[in-house]
């Protein structure tokens, strides 16, 4: 999709994030590329430690350097974020690009009032006065569905429930109407019922604000629910990318198929001949500290061959708009 790249809101090109550790270099992200169009929801899926959170943190340049070393390019509205001076970068954070973090219980500052934390971004980026910022904070709280916003705005995080705190986080993130919202496992720490509410809220707000969303998750249910397109990451690399419908209908990479097998399905065990247990992917994610010559998934792949161990498969189109990095992924005639 080279033509799309030009118009993309965000394009990450060959991103490499390496951490220097006492026992070697950790290649947390190793040559990942993807792009997000305005208003699109892109999901990045993978196990813990596959580099998805590191990718999102490098977009905002929030990784401490050193030990992190970033290479490649991250273009946002045509500007390379990796070469931007820190001052310029600060103007983008919380303004054009904002984040919702995974842990609502610990991501809010316990000693600052909710109103001050929402208002802070408005005062920083839009130069609002303290009073106007608080007014806007009340509106934001109402927007994210917090009852009695005028009272809540003066409260502190410990006086709110987990779901409410995540709503406050969303209010902070959306206060300046960002063009890109990075949601890093936004629902993982919440109750299932609250999860649904938060997802509904995000979808609703996305419609209103028109922000693109980069959703980082390991929850395929969430992906099916909200994403337009999906990038599957494994051991610091992108192994598959497709529109959400294509991915769920015909996953082409064995790792993606493994992920889907690891999702519980109601009634699946009662079917005759069905496995009694949840399918798991055998083995462990390889260490990111050793260079892997072959396919990164070779050690755990059920259909691994000698070719996989010696030669890394290229990430190539297997169907229109569907990329996968596997020698043996089924390939549609049209794609070639």
């Amino acid at each position, binding site marked *: 999709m080279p033509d799309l790249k030009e118009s993309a809101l965000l394009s990450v090109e060959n991103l490499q994030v390496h951490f220097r550790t006492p026992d070697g270099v950790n290649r947390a992200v190793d040559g990942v590329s993807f792009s997000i169009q305005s208003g699109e929801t892109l999901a990045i899926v993978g196990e813990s430690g596959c580099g998805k959170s590191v990718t999102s943190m490098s977009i905002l340049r929030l990784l401490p350097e050193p030990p992190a070393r970033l290479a490649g390019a991250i273009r946002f509205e045509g500007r390379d974020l990796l070469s931007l001076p820190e001052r310029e970068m600060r103007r983008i954070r919380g303004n054009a690009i*904002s984040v919702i973090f995974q842990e609502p219980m610990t991501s809010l500052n316990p000693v600052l009032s909710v109103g001050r934390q929402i208002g802070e971004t408005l005062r920083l980026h839009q130069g609002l006065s303290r009073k106007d910022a608080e007014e806007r904070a009340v509106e934001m709280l109402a927007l994210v569905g917090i009852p009695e916003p005028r009272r809540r705005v003066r409260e502190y995080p410990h006086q709110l429930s987990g779901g409410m705190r995540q709503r406050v986080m969303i209010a902070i993130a959306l206060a300046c109407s960002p063009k890109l919202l990075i949601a890093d496992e936004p629902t993982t720490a919440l109750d299932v019922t609250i999860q649904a509410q938060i997802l509904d809220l995000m979808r609703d707000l996305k419609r209103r604000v028109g922000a693109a969303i980069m959703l980082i998750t390991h929850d395929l249910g969430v992906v099916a629910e909200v994403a337009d397109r999906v990038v599957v990451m494994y051991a610091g690399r992108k192994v598959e990318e497709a529109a959400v419908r294509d991915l769920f209908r015909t996953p082409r990479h064995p790792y993606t198929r493994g992920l889907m097998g690891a999702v519980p399905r109601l009634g699946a065990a009662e079917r005759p001949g069905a496995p009694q247990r949840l399918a798991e992917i055998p083995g462990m994610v390889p260490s990111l500290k050793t260079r892997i010559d072959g396919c990164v998934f070779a050690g755990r792949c059920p259909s691994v061959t000698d070719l996989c161990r010696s030669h890394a498969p290229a990430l190539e189109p297997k169907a229109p708009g569907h990329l996968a990095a596997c020698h043996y992924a089924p390939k549609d005639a049209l794609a070639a």
Partner: protein
Amino acid sequence: MFGFLVRRVLAVIPVMAVVGLFVFSLLSLAPGDPAALIAGDQASPADIERIRASLGLDRPFLVRFGEWAWRILHGDLGTSIFTNLPVTTMIGQRVQPTVSLMLVTLIFAVLVAVPLGVVAAWKAGRLVDRLVMGAAVLGFSVPVFVVGYLLAYVFALELGWLPAQGYTPIEQGVGPWLANLVLPALTLGLVYIALIARVTRATMLDVLQQDYVRTARAKGVAQGSVLFVHALKNAAVPIVTVIGIGIALLIGGAVVTETVFAIPGLGRLTVDAILRRDYPVIQGVVLLFSFTYVLVNLAIDLLYTLIDPRIRY
């Protein structure tokens, strides 16, 4: 909140009662007989006995304690055995230099130590951090009198920038008053700065790891504001605690510092009173110091509720 305030203030009473009993009995148990001291070398045992009776020292311990406590509650700390002046008058004459010294030291130390600790935590493991922490170890280990004489030698005698000794009352101008306090405050403050800087660094190191600091950065908050608003406010409870505890350090250090710099304050009064076994003065000064310390801790307990909204009584 109001209930807490009342309870917390009432709790001062038993604490001070115990302090009073301790102060009173400590001096009764200490060697040396004030009656014999006043009577002089030539006195007969009968003379000593008469003086002892006139001082009331022949009556039972608890009776004396009761009377003593009753008088103190009425603002009468007794009369100095040595100068025959009321102890309250003697303390009154000496209060200003000591309060000046402690306040200047306190403000100076906090203004220096907290930023040093914050920067050390921010640059943990780097050169700045090592320098600050190295200096802190030095601050802990060098005795007050060594620092005092060293500073006086360099800045007063050699360079002549500041007066080496004495005290100028604030009524004679803030400039001269402050000039006389710079070296003593530096001397007294060194250990205090080291203590506060270390605690600030340790607490900030922990706070900077927290998720909400990352949130602040993700919001586009500038580094200084991340450190001194978002993080420092969360680190404030331990820092304020150690500042309060350190007041005891200042009180102890003031005695030595005032001696080194010839400041006519409460520290000197204490030392002189001990050397003369001037019991009422010793008791008065120790009670005053204890009471100050108890009040400081009370103030800190109340301050917690302002710093951290999660602390409610």
